[in-house]
């Protein structure tokens, strides 16, 4: 079951390897499971498909490789974010 630590290890691995990934594959998508960088893909859905094929319904990280993470923006006040 998902908790606040879910994907923390994968995000840590991404941050540790970010400079190398940006140098080699800026704008592409990386698939990370645990401490392993599985592969790099051209599209997000390609990475997700391989992730599901390899890991099924286990958490895994698909992340766009970019210098500054693009944030999602919402103008609607329907979304409530606990402080």
């Amino acid at each position: 079951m998902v908790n606040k630590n879910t994907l923390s290890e994968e995000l840590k691995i991404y941050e540790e390897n970010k400079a190398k990934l940006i140098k080699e594959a800026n704008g592409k998508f990386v698939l990370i499971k645990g401490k392993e960088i599985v592969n790099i893909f051209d599209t997000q859905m390609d990475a997700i498909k391989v992730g599901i094929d390899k890991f099924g319904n286990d958490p895994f990280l698909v992340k766009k490789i970019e210098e500054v993470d693009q944030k999602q923006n919402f103008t609607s006040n329907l979304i409530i974010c606990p402080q």
Partner: protein
Amino acid sequence: MPSVTYTSPNIQIEGPILEVHFSISSELEKKYIEESKQIPVPIVVKSLIDTGASSCTIREDIPKKLGLEPIGKIKINTPSTKDHECFQYVMRMFMPLQGLTYEGVFTAVSLEGQDIEALIGRDLLQQGIFIYIGYMNQFTFSLM
């Protein structure tokens, strides 16, 4: 190109709302069939087409009800918060009678008020056509 047109006298108050089904992705469904696992029953939810949302969102409890695990974690900005961390899930959204299907990433958030359980954002609208005819209380949504 499958499409749906709705006319509602309350469109100005309620907004362009679609009743859609959410299920696990087709890739995961294939995996479940191979492993003889039970496939969760799709969940029907009210979705608002929201041109102010940069991506699609889903109320947090829906992916949990489908037993899904996340495939990403991102930061979002809303009118009241900045850099709020949210999990992402890959899901299939469909309207069986109209033949509309979209498979993609949905950000799990807390959605309060108006009984809305999902926002259809600009990442999905990028793949379709959305026409809002206010004076006719009507909207049309088509998806490639």
